[in-house]
């Protein structure tokens, strides 16, 4: 980082420049700077929802594109996610107070036998940022956990994640159990994880395979809109 950037005083930037700077700071995983900028925008009477969507979510969207294009790698994405998490930590309680659009409710977790939750955590964070309520079941979930949570939470979407080729077939076990119980069509089922692909998503009977967090958000929005139109 240059001396000039070291001397940058966030509070002296215009709103527009500050938001652009936040995109840069998210890209560089600078959590403290994101924390400071979020507080500055709040002081300038920005709505928490606007800060979330225009600075944090948009910044992470850019990070997601560069990850997809092979410009950024997992460590950089994790640092960016850490910075976004810090900003969201400030905004979350305020969003509840001030209200934000609720697009739907998602139950998400990694499948039985799989403890790799980096992708799942990114998806959960981006879904929350986009206005979905997320019930995160964590790691290593047997079919009962998913189905109980879907019913208990009256959820709209089931998200399942797996990193291992040995655990990804368990997604079919969950979907088949939902079919047996006659509840498969009550939910949108989205699946993701490094070894998955579109063909696998179709073969197991999911609604869609989502290759990354940004695609998951867009796919979830699209399915929720279709669902809304059916009602």
């Amino acid at each position, binding site marked *: 980082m240059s001396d000039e950037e070291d001397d940058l005083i966030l509070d002296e930037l215009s709103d527009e420049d500050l938001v652009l700077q936040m995109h840069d700071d998210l890209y560089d995983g600078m959590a403290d700077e994101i924390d400071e900028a979020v507080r500055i925008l709040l002081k300038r009477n920005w709505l928490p929802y606007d800060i979330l969507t225009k600075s944090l979510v948009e910044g992470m969207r850019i990070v997601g594109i560069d990850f997809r294009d092979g410009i950024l*790698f997992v*460590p950089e994405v994790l640092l960016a996610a850490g910075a976004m998490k810090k900003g969201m930590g400030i905004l979350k309680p305020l969003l509840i107070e001030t209200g934000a659009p609720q697009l739907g409710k998602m139950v998400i977790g990694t499948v039985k036998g799989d403890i790799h939750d980096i992708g799942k955590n990114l998806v959960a964070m981006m879904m929350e940022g986009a206005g979905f309520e997320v019930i995160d079941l964590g790691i290593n979930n047997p079919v009962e956990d998913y189905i109980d949570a879907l019913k208990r939470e009256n959820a709209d979407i089931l998200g399942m994640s797996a990193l291992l*080729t040995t655990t990804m077939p368990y997604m079919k076990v969950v979907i088949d159990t939902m079919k047996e119980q006659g509840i498969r069509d009550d939910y949108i089922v989205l699946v993701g994880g490094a070894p998955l692909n579109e063909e696998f998503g179709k073969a197991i009977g999911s609604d869609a395979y989502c290759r990354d967090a940004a695609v998951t958000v867009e796919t979830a929005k699209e399915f929720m809109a279709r669902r809304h139109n059916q009602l």
Partner: protein
Amino acid sequence: MQTLIIACGALAREVLALIELNGWQHMELSCLPADLHLRPEKIPDAVEAAVEAARGRYEQIFVAYADCGTGGLLKARCDALGVDMISGPHCYSFFEGNEAFTARGEVTSFYLTDFLARQFDAFVWRPMGLDKHPELRDMYFGNYEKLVYLAQTEDESLTAAATLAAQKLGLKFERRFTGYGDLSSSLGALPH
């Protein structure tokens, strides 16, 4: 029968050791870069190119890879190419023996082999960015409980390296001697 073994670079020492140990003079080894494991979707194309380049020069070609994160795509490609490969999901499994590995059903163990113990920094620590950002460690490894070193050889220096790796990752350490496991039986079963 003149045989070419096309192997993952992470198995080079082990395959050469088995060739020497068993006097398999009919076998030659050709390795693909071990770092293909960082992008497993590239493995089937790389294996196909190696098979096609060697075709006609050997009576038999064997692929010393397991599924290795390809989700069945490598098996499908090898079937299409008419060459055999090692059974199982990955080298951790076939070194321990696929049946024994499956029976353990370990979910929260992170595995090292001799290769990975030797190359921990180059294949684990640095690619994950932990040399520059050690604060990311628990995001990667927070759900693991122990590091299991599956040892192919009796080598104190590798055990020490694996122990150190476990300490760096904040995991408990266990060493299991596996020898060459199903790698040995797979190569041994090839027609001579």
